């Protein structure tokens, strides 16, 4: 057996073990990505082979928590891809305005920056009373951080710039308190967001939603899992609801391709159409 195959077998066993022991299913994550994460974690934990991680993972829950942290990528920023937010503001929110109340699901919210951005958007469009914003992730640590809503001060410049590019109508500084070298997101913004644990790999639809953001999450999934998640979104969305994917993601090869129409091709905003 070649080294490569051995490694693949080891990874498969490892992921099976995690699934059987903890119920977290990483088996349908994109292979190359998960391989990198596993090897990276192996190196940081000072073990010599992937197989060695298995017994530790099974017996040491904290070790698994560490690993789960390593597996979940939490790259995010306020108003990431600002033009996408601009597009949301222009193409999607006016339509959402026709609902007396609506729900937004931000799946894979990580540490919540984009959820805060959405909250700002809703606030500025005077929709915050009508909107319920769910921000979910499977990573409890990240969720905890998101609930705290404390951001790094040194990002403030970038965020302000993004905010302006996203068509902000106010001043970004009005949405946070700066103190002790950190930015604290204002309570009024946070209280409209329900942060909750939801695992796209295993869990089901929890609510009827009108807009779903799931950006740069599915790039870590394999095709099969991507299809499952698309199914969840499709099921959750109301007729005419919106789906917003990451800039690098696409519905191109999905079987749900025909069930959505493109609202903004560049920013990957889609609308669920009638059957």
């Amino acid at each position, binding site marked *: 057996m070649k080294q490569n195959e051995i490694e693949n077998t080891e990874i498969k066993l490892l992921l099976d073990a995690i699934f059987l022991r*903890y*119920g*977290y299913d990483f088996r349908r994550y*994109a292979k*190359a*990505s998960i391989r*990198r*994460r596993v090897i*990276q974690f192996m190196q940081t934990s000072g073990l010599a082979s992937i197989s060695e991680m298995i017994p530790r993972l099974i017996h040491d829950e904290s070790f698994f928590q560490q690993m789960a942290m390593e597996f979940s*990528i*939490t*790259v995010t920023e306020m108003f990431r891809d600002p033009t996408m937010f601009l597009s949301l503001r222009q193409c999607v929110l*006016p*339509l959402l*305005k*026709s*609902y*007396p*109340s609506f*729900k937004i699901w931000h799946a894979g919210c990580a540490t919540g920056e984009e959820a805060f951005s959405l909250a700002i958007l809703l606030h500025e469009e005077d929709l915050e009373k*009508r909107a*319920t914003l*769910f921000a*979910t992730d499977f990573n409890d640590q990240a969720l905890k951080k998101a609930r705290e809503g404390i951001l790094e001060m040194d990002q403030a410049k970038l965020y302000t710039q993004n905010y302006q590019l996203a068509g902000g109508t106010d001043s970004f500084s009005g949405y946070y308190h700066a103190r002790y070298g950190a930015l604290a997101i204002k309570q009024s913004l946070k209280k*409209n967001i*329900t942060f*909750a*644990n*939801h*695992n796209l790999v*295993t*869990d*089901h*639809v*929890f*609510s*009827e939603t009108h807009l779903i953001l799931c950006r*740069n999450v*599915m*790039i*870590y999934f394999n095709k099969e899992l991507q299809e499952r998640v698309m199914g969840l979104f499709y*099921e959750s969305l109301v*007729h*005419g609801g919106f789906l917003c994917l*990451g800039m*690098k*993601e*696409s519905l*191109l*090869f999905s079987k749900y391709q025909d069930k959505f129409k493109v609202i903004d091709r560049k920013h990957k905003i889609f609308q669920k159409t*009638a059957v």
Partner: protein
Amino acid sequence: MKWWNRLSYRLTVFILLLTVVPLAGVGIYTINDFHNVRLLSIEQIHGNMGQAAAERIEASLSDTIKKIELIIESSELESADVSDQEWFLQMLIKTIPHLNALKVVTVNGQEKVKVGRDSVYNPASLKQHIDLPDFSSTEDKKPIIGPVYETVLSEKIFDLYVPMSNPMDKQVVAVLVAQINIEKLLGFVTDLRVGDTGYVYVVNHQGKILIYPDHSVVLAGENALKNPLVKDFGSGQKIFETNQIYTNRKQIQVFTNVYEIKELNLLVVVVQSVDEALSSVRQITSRQIVTLAIVLLVAILLALYFIIKLNRPLGSLTTGAQQLGRGDLSHRIKVTSSDEIGTVTQSFNAMAQDLESSKKKADRLGWIRQGMVELDEQTRGEQSLEQVCTNIITFMASYLKEQVGLIHVNDGKGKFIYAAGYAFDPGENFSNDFGLGEGLPGQAALERKMVILADIPAEYITVTSSLGNSTPRHLVIVPFVYNDQVEAVMELGSLTPISEQQKSFLTETADSIAIILSAARSRQELKTSLTQTRQQAEELERQQEELQAANEEMEEQTQQLMASENKLKEQQEELQAANEELEEKTQYLERNKKKIEEKNSTLELMGQDLEKKAEDLSIASKYKSEFLANMSHELRTPLNSLLLLARLLTDNKKGNLSSDQVDSARIIYNSGNDLLALINEILDLSKIEAGKMQLSVNEIPLTELSDSLDNNFRRLVIEKGLSLDISFKKDMPKSIISDQQRILQILKNFISNACKFTSTGGVSVIFYRPDTSVVFLRKDLYHSNVIAIDVRDTGIGIPEDKQKIIFEAFQQVEGGSARKFGGTGLGLSISRELANLLGGEIKLKSQVNAGSTFTLLLPMKAPASTQSESAGRVEPIELKKPILPQVSGTAAEHVVDHPKPFQTDIPDDRDGIGSDDKTILIIEDDADFATTLLNFCREKRFKGLVSLSGEDGLKLAQAFKINAIILDIHLPGIDGWTVLESLKENTSTRHIPVHFMSADDPIPEAFSKGAMGYLTKPVTPEDMEKAISNLQSMINKGMKDLLLVEDNTNQRYAITKLISDQDVVIQEVSTGIDALSELRKNKFDCMILDLGLPDMSGFDLLKKMEKDPLITPPPVVVYTGRELTLDEESELRKYSDSIIIKGVRSEERLLDETSLFLHRVVDNMSEEKRKMISILHDPEQALQNRTILVVDDDMRNVFALSKVLTNKGAQILKAENGIKALELLNQRKGVDLVLMDIMMPVMDGYETMKKIREDSRFAKLPIIALTAKAMQRDKEDCIAAGANDYLAKPVDIDRLLSMMRVWLYR
């Protein structure tokens, strides 16, 4: 300590040895000496005694001898005569007492004279011979002593032989033998005494005792061989030993010594008891022992004294030293004596004092050093600055036993910030920080000097404990300086003044604390920057990961694109290859073609003749088929009216016909029917032969088939007095895919044949799977895909030779001769053809008079009959066009010939149509039938319009508001198909449902082109009835009607315009009242409602709609300009699935949602929804009147659940989040069960459940958690938070209901 190691014991032993050993030695020696001396003296005494005795014995013996010799000499005895001799002898005896007897013996041993003491022996009694000792050898001729012997009187006697020699020659002439009594001789010995117990005895050489103090012993003849000396003497040994000890006959230990008497060979033995002999020695010995004992006692007493005297002070010294060893340096020993021990004790005390004082010193130093070590321990390791400060202040305060302490740390900017405290209670005036020189601590920091304050004011600082407060009166402030910088300032307060020792400790530690603090600070700074760097690195890594993943995603997409491109390329290549191949083939074909053409040209010439003939034949056949096909129309059209009217007459509804007339009508009807059947059969056969027969292949449940047979034939068979038995064998499929009508046609034929040819018994129909013994003629039939249907009868049977021909057209068993059984004889031919068309075959088994079995074998899936279908599809239209003119020409001639009324001749309702009337347009060229239809419509309360041609029909359809159209296909001018197309092309007429009625067989196109029904002429009244009622329901339901309730005219106009291009009839109203009345009158498919109406609010309107029994509320789209509260929305969602707030982009949604409702058909609903509908309206005991609280923010879910549960008889309370749920629970009593969503805004399910459980009233309230989370852990969390059970979303309603039944069960 072993006892022998103890000094006291040793001393004792030593003293004892010193006193007792010499004493005992001397004593023993003395005793021994004395003993020896005593022995010597014994020996001497005994010797002397012996000697004395011996001398006395010898003296008395020699005295005797001398006396005798004297006598001899003096008397010359040897020569004297006997009497003289006797006389001398007697004299001798008288002078020597111890002589017993005397005799003279001659040398040759003859006794001559013998004289006793008292007697003289006469010569007779003298002995002849006596052994005499030999004197010849002896020089001096001395007397010889004989041995001692015993006389008969037990006298101890020895003989003394005294020689008597002639004085001349000195020759011994006789011997005088003197018998001497030894006891008398030695009698004195018994009187000899040695001491008290000592005595003397004499033994002879044999050891025999001769003389003994106790005379009896001698008389007993005892010997003294017990005495070792005597023993030695007896055995002839020389005796040297003295003082021998032995046990005498009285068993007493005695000393013995001897003295030998050589002449007599006797031994004098001296004996004395040992006790007596040694009594003096013993006496001395006992005296010595007594002395020794006394000395011993004295020595012991002395030893004890010294022990006591020495041990006590030594003991206290030992305990003293041990106390010292244990650390009790204050221990001193009392000096009790002035001797050496006293001195030792004194110096011991002095030493202890020295030790004590030096230890105190060491302790103090140790305390400081230990403090520093502990401090070091407290601050060792990677601790944060705060931690270090806390540790320092805690340690310092507790080590110095201070009551309170705090520490301020230099923040690097000249400010000192409170860092940590010990038992510190920041009072009101406490300020977090101070600068250099500010306040006392500031001052201390500035001066870099320790400040000590005593008697500070009472309120300065307090020490607080739960028992009370107190104020420390002493304060010390210590600045920690390192590298010329004050790192921190520490303040310590206590109730007692600070000691020198504490102070020196503070001074000693201040520097190291400063260093520690400084190190901690720089470590903290380092750590902060390290964390920052690491975070940045992690962030970078994450971003990289994301980038990489994104790239991979893109790559994958690209790869997929490339793959599809490659696929396309491949296909292109394949196509190209195929093209090339084709080309090659074409070329090859062309070559072949040329050859064939050449051959053909010759063949053609030959064939042309044939062709011509064949053409003629085929044209003839075609004409026949065409004719027959067209004839069907022509034949059926008159038959249609004939049959219908005859039937109506038979019904005699008006009752104005006599029974004869009715019978006649019935005969007309029956004959017509027979005629129709004949025509149909002929037509069927010709159609099949012409390839025009179409199949309508569908899924047919077999039970439907059997039911249909049963319905059709049971009566007929029973009327004939036969039985009908329809049965299924095992393993039958539920359904097959085939053409039901044709199957029934075949089976009907079989059954009617069976009935025909059976007079007794019955007919049975059996459905089964053929076994392997059945041989199929068709190659595409297999046992696995075939079902068989047997029709068995008990009739006359069919002879073998006829079995084949009965399937041929126009053949009958009996030929034409005796036609007992009527019929065209086409049935079986048609059946065979039909079976063939269906992909099956027919088998026959029969015996004459034993019945027949017809078996229909059918594939489970009929082959797609493309040939017949395409023929059926295309030909009616295409073939008709060239041929129709001819036929219709003849038909037209017919029309002209017949006195048929023109279209207007039929009086229809075109002048009397009211606005509410429903109108049906009849387009039919057969005026009779049209009239019949018109009457039928009128009966059904429709208004009817009649048109005899398609052109007129179209005009009427435009001109009138038509609700439905009945359309014939064969029309003069444009035909029915064209009419249908025109109707559908026109927007104003396209919605009108069209029903075909034609003599032609129905073709599938009719429905795809928009017809809603198809009836084949001739029609029965029942068919008509059905068609009309179909239309009726179509009219009522098929239209898309929209009710628009909007008071604003412009808005109304806009909406109408937005929606009107659809297939929708819009009814506009502006008030609620109008809306209600409109709703009562008509059924709408959808309703658009503005909430703000002039007469009532939209809410009221919706409520009234709900309550009005006459109204079935349509789906409502609420279209409003108002913002809605959550409650309002929730209220509205009860009635409306769609709420649209007017805005810039709202029209889009309005259009979308409206069209959604308008086109939603029940059949399109998902399986699940259907199921939900099916379980509606089924009230259930378990849920009846139960109050269920549904807590969920998802309206969709809430309404779905409420709908189901309400219909099950439960009462539903709703709450969209946890807070609302708790409020509801508090307000409303009697909630029986809670359905709890987990993921909700404001307060989630977990928290809500915990809150509910906290309230004791709800401890047992069943809660079922509903969650989208799927993991085992989530379930556990739910249960842990207080849920009784758990159900994953999407909710399976059956499971939920059964779960609720369980939890509601009482």
